């Protein structure tokens, strides 16, 4: 195994084991998670990316030093250049809005049929067939209307936790919303107070959701989202297509749900 990158939000310390997935081992850092991940997952503010990743069976703590980590009994050195920078130091280019149109189009094509992209295209609602799914879709629609046209924090509070998986679709949407809020117009976190309120309204007992919501609140982006936004700002339509496809490859519908939250927010701002 070789360390490819280490997120800029990971501080020196010893972090106890939390959970293990096929491509990630998670460790607790206060009320959020540091993850040692497979290259396919990619860079993130709290990710340590390993080449030839092996999740192993370890439940030992993760140790992070100034220039090395200790994971599963192995010491893996890293250089300062391997620190992943999660902040976006750029501003939307002149064609940002046009690229958003491309983003929407690819999002609709590449996303899971039961993702929240029905918010972008009403016809997709037909993919929600069971009683629970129909009620879910109605609820999400109500919450999103509430966020943008009614009581924002009530909308967020009600949307948080909506969805069937480990990271509910509603939480992914809110993360996209937070990223969009932070990006609104200036490219730097300008609505800190709003973002803090939204995060507090969405916070739950789910440490996975809390982790990425907290990062989104701070404008800290994981690699695929950062690359997508950079493509929207300055790159070609082809790059936007590629980055959107990569975003949609996250989880069952997580990437697409996050993208939907981001898109809807950027269009409303």
């Amino acid at each position, binding site marked *: 195994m070789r360390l490819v990158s280490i997120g800029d939000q990971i501080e020196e310390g010893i972090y106890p084991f939390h959970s293990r997935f096929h491509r990630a081992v998670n460790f607790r850092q206060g009320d959020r998670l540091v993850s040692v991940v497979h290259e396919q997952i990619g860079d993130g503010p709290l990710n340590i990316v390993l080449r030839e990743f092996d999740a192993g069976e370890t439940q030992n703590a993760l140790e992070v030093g100034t220039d090395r980590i200790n994971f599963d009994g192995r010491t893996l050195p890293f250089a300062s250049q391997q620190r992943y920078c999660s902040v976006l130091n750029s501003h939307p280019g002149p064609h940002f809005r046009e690229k958003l149109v491309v983003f929407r189009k690819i999002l609709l094509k590449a996303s899971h049929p039961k993702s929240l992209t029905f918010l972008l295209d009403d016809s997709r609602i037909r993919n929600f067939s069971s*009683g629970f799914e129909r009620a879910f879709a109605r*609820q999400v629609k109500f919450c999103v209307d509430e966020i943008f046209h009614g009581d924002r924090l009530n909308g967020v509070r009600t949307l948080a936790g909506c*969805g069937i998986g*480990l990271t509910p679709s509603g939480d992914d949407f809110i993360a996209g919303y937070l990223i969009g809020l932070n990006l609104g117009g200036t490219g730097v976190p300008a609505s800190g107070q709003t973002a803090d309120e939204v995060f507090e309204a969405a916070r739950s007992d789910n440490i996975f959701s809390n982790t990425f919501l907290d990062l989104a609140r701070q404008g800290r982006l994981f690699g695929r989202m950062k690359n997508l936004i950079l493509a929207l700002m300055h790159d070609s*339509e*082809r790059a936007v297509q590629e980055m959107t496809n990569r975003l949609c490859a996250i989880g069952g519908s997580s990437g697409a749900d996050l993208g939907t939250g981001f898109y809807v927010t950027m269009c409303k701002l």
Partner: protein
Amino acid sequence: MIVTGQIRKGAYFDSVTLMRVGKEIGSLPGVIDAAIVMGTKANKAILNSSGLLRAQFSNASDTDLLVAVKAKTEDAGQSALAGVDALLKKTAKTTASTEVPSVNLRGALDMLPDANLALISIAGRYAGDEAMRALENGLHVMLFSDNVPLEKEIALKKFAAKRGLLVMGPDCGTAIINGVPLAFANVVNRGNIGIVAAAGTGLQEVSCLISNAGAGISQAIGTGGRDVKKEVGGMMFIEALKALAKDEQTKVILLVSKPPHPQVLNRIKKVLKSIRKPVVTMFIGASDSTLEEAALTAVALSQRKKSDDVAKQLTARNIEIQRIAKREAGKRKNGQKYVRGLFSGGTFCAEAQILFSQMLTGVYSNAPTGKARQLKNSLKSQKNTVIDLGEDEFTVGRPHPMIDYSLRNKRILEEAADPETAVILLDVVLGYGSNPDPASELACVIRQARRNVSVVCSITGTDKDPQNRSRVEAALRKAGAIVMPSNAAACKLAGSII
């Protein structure tokens, strides 16, 4: 009716797994509705509004998994709950074996040591080296990538031929190997007709026509269009032909290509002399024959029917075409005198030009074949125009037109607004890799175009394709298109209306 359920403390699953398991439970006998969700407050509210909430769920936390089943009887509900473990384990096993794609050939071989074919789809300048590595590991290669240098292609094919391996491609968009559709391919019946094709959409068309006629495919081997050129010498076309000659499941062989270089053709003919199985050849433009005729002839041979039957079938079709053409021609206004073919498949575009050259004068194309002339500006039609929208000039920076219909849809409306256009001719290619919902993307455009012109199209696909051919056909007919069973039939109709 009862609602039953259970709480699984601290059980984590991703949403796709839970959706799949929820759907499977929902389809069990006696089950009316089911949901498997994390126990968040929001999800409990949704369960409540969908009549799936149990009082016991109030004790569950955000990180617990809730299983809720609405069933006709207590027994049906309990039986569904009892099946949840097995379904979750099954899905977990499937996920575990597929979730981590390998990042290189070595890793892939570690995961699948019995694999005997590598499908390579990476940037052309790297694809050749990766293909060579696969060959060195004893794998057949399907090389989807284009822009592989010619010298590299020749080196790969020489190396493969010496070791009894196949290199399908470069720029090989489709194949069906042992019943598995690869890249852009359709879900067809298995059967005893083997295909070798140096024409991608040509392979898709004949395999679908064969399947829709009730016969099936043993193997469908693509070679990439450059294989039959002089430089490559038809190396893989010939190797594939030999492989089908030896294949026990293959009783009839069908060859599809644009005309090979004369030297290559001679080599193919030499090999054909040694093959005892019936072989149908379809070298587009070399004769008046069509892809449809070749496919139906192969079907007749595979079913030991008389080849006269094919001729009778096509004669009856031609009478029907003339009837529809007369009806459509009667709707034309003064000045409407040209056909505008907008193709996503290069082979279809070539076949259209060959057929039109027998029926019309003044045929232009951005990819001229036969007697057709080069279009000055691909964005502007001249007289009878046939456009291949899969050419590089249209695909740089955007997905292939089989996937992304936006460019063609725009062009359809432009052509429909041209007072000289009488007919718009389209191909619709279904199958894996193609646009997942062509009907909804095309229907509104066809509906608009239909107000001014006749819209004729063919659909390449089967009812087993993810898009379902019958469903797409019904939607396009409803929108006002005239849907023909093959590209050749669609071209003949379009040409006859003029």
